[in-house]
């Protein structure tokens, strides 16, 4: 299955993914790819389904959620059909996860060095001493000062930014092919956030690791990601390169989201707010999910739009996409 980006097979290939809670569809027919060495952003607000999509890859969906359709391939492994032991082998090794709340993801009772080294002990069967030595190098790689001392510290002795970097070090331990980062900079200071983003970029440059970066913050994405998927109410409404999305957003929702983001770098006279609210799970109608709030909605929008290609890598799910250089 050739990827959109190069001729090679993608590292992560999600096809027609549909996830349902009893009686509600929360992720609908999502197709998503991440190529080797690519940084792909998955953007959405609450209720968009972005987190559930990521959890499906990791098989960490909540108990009531079920994948009713679709395939998820990590290289040649079918993620939805693995046995428990196969999954245990893959997670941490080929596929790593950086969760949102690093403070809660670290065990407060164990020294950081032990936690960072743990994947090595489990997957590579090396001794704890050897793992700790490697942990020192990992902490250095994420720019933590005095890593030899830091491995003996406990999580509460680390600041938020340092904890997040420790989580990244843990994710890197086994040199995975794909890192899934779920809002990894939430709650961090702006300057620390910039460092974490830069670090992830470095990792991709140095090791060719692919990254799936999940966020609600458009600004984070524009500097460091290659391609972007925009989700709304369970569907991918637009996908394309960073240039496509930010310079010429074609879906009314993408454009509205950009127009609603305040800027410190430029004087914005009016933030355009989108009328209405994000639909709650039970309220999603048939037809275009964004139609109730869309300023361009027409009668045809009562039918669910199909994806159309604006340019080779730029796709929109809309009957009336905006023109290439329309202003909001």
């Amino acid at each position: 299955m050739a990827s959109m980006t190069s001729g090679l097979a993608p590292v992560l290939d999600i096809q027609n993914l549909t996830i349902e809670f009893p009686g509600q569809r929360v992720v609908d027919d999502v197709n998503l790819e991440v190529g080797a060495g690519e940084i792909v952003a998955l953007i959405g607000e609450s209720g968009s389904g972005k987190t559930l999509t990521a959890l499906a890859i990791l098989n960490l969906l909540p108990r009531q959620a079920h994948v009713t359709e679709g395939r998820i391939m990590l290289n040649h492994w079918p993620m939805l059909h693995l046995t428990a032991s196969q999954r245990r082998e893959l997670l941490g090794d080929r596929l790593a996860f950086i969760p949102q709340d690093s403070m809660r993801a670290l065990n407060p009772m164990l020294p950081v060095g032990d936690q960072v080294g743990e994947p090595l002990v489990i997957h590579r069967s090396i001794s704890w001493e050897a793992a700790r030595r490697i942990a020192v190098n990992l902490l250095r790689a994420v720019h933590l000062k005095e890593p030899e001392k830091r491995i003996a510290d406990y999580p509460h002795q680390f600041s938020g930014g340092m904890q997040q970097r420790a989580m990244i070090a843990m994710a890197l331990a086994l040199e995975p092919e794909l890192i899934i980062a779920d809002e990894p900079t939430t709650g961090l200071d702006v300057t620390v956030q910039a460092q974490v983003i830069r670090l992830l970029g470095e990792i991709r440059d140095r090791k060719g690791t692919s990254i799936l970066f999940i966020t609600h913050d458009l600004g984070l994405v524009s500097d460091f990601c290659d391609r972007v998927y925009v989700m709304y109410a369970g569907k991918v409404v637009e996908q394309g390169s960073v240039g496509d999305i930010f310079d010429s957003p074609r879906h009314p929702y993408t454009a509205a989201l950009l127009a609603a983001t305040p800027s410190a770098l430029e004087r914005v006279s009016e933030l355009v707010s989108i009328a209405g609210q994000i639909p709650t799970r039970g309220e999603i109608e048939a037809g275009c999910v964004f139609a109730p709030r869309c300023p361009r909605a027409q009668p045809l929008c009562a039918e669910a739009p199909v994806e159309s290609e604006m340019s080779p890598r730029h796709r929109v799910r809309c009957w009336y996409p905006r023109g290439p250089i329309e202003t909001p």
Partner: protein
Amino acid sequence: MKLLEVKNVSKRFDARSWFGRPGDLVVRDVSLSVAAGQTLGIVGESGSGKSTLLRMMLRLIRPTSGSIIFRGQDLWTLGGAELLAVRREIQAIFQDPASSLNPRQRIGDILLAPLDVHRIGPSKERRDEVVATLLRVGLTADYARRYPHQLSGGQRQRVAIARAIIMGPSVVLADEPTSALDVSVQAQILNLFREIKRNLGLTSVFVSHNLGVVRYLCDSVAVMRQGEIVEIGPSETVFAAPQHPYTRALLDAVPDPRRRLLSSLVPGEG
């Protein structure tokens, strides 16, 4: 006229723990003022002291030294009826929509409370005032019967704004009121806040770590770092031509989709 003034305010918290250093100065010798009808933004990262400063301006925490002056009076010299009168004038909007509303009270009762406490208007008419205020923040009368957990984050913040304005205060102090909201909801709440500010002639202070939000709403801005103000001035001046290296570092680090646009305007780029 300077409605609200902060004069050389410092705050040190007492040492609570048995070990560890005695409390550091969380706010160091801060002075600023807000003129009537103006909006002052206070930006800073964690540890900057901005939230502590705001709470001192709300008379929730006592300054270790210095004073907070409202209409010429030091807030901490007031007591009893005088203090109650001032409380009516200075109101607040807090950050977390989930915890700023009492989960066991209906919206209507939450909004009625300030009117009851200050005995505003004949009690029969207070419910009408609650409804009028709900409409003013873009909600409908039937929201009065609901409980906070039945509302979305954006709706809860509208209620928080309603609670802040229902007594007709002169000053509203806001502590990161949109940080917990989605971008599209944030835009709605920011626009609502702008409109209400204009209609009611409010003076306000807006604390945030989000520089874009502060630039959008505020006439002037103070940048705080580790308890001190490192730069203060009109928004457009500070944002367009920052003087202090820390301000410049913050602006460089801020995630901004428009950065692409601006950098792509640099001549010579391929």
